[in-house]
């Protein structure tokens, strides 16, 4: 089973604060994704990447930056956090060819006060 590890699992920050969410996958997957989940919206794609140094914009990118430093590591950055970014954040990964099944981490609950 694919392993995707997120840290921290919970985070509280103040409005205007700087937050970095981390994600590591150990399955040699090429694709990695960041989603946010809010009540009534399901999961929405923020950013994704298909390899180290690559970044693609998702559906709700405003207020977020991301960086893929290695094949394993994908970071989500909130440089000026706002209360509207209070959410449950998921990282995920998937392979290149054939089977495109996506595997998710356990989520990071972020609260911006």
């Amino acid at each position, binding site marked *: 089973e694919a392993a995707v590890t997120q840290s921290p699992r919970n985070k509280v920050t103040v409005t205007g604060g700087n937050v970095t969410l981390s994600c590591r996958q150990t399955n040699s997957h090429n694709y990695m*994704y960041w989603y946010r989940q809010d009540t009534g919206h399901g999961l929405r794609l923020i950013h994704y990447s298909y390899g180290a140094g690559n970044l693609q914009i998702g559906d709700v990118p405003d207020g977020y930056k991301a960086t893929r430093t290695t094949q394993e590591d994908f970071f989500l950055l909130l440089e000026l956090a706002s209360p509207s970014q209070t959410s449950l954040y998921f990282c995920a990964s998937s392979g290149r060819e054939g089977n495109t099944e996506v595997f998710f981490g356990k989520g990071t609950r972020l609260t911006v006060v």
Partner: protein
Amino acid sequence: GDQVEQSPSALSLHEGTGSALRCNFTTTMRAVQWFQQNSRGSLINLFYLASGTKENGRLKSTFNSKESYSTLHIRDAQLEDSGTYFCAASAYQGGRALIFGTGTTVSVSP
């Protein structure tokens, strides 16, 4: 508009009964996944289908890419089946990212 339309939004079942959840797609999808979200918020992979039907215990899922829909059938529902179920599909564009439905909250009662 939404590319993944999931229904119903809520479903109440008595133990031992069954029902079906459905997702309709407004564009051609390459694959579909079904997840259960547990009380701690974790997403549990139930099925991945590029076509056809898969079964696992009391759950069965079908993906008809030609007619643009997928279903998840629950039979002999148990209390532990309560939770929120999501379908998600990947299109041929968009880097294989999953597009999620809005979820079905399933409540199983004795």
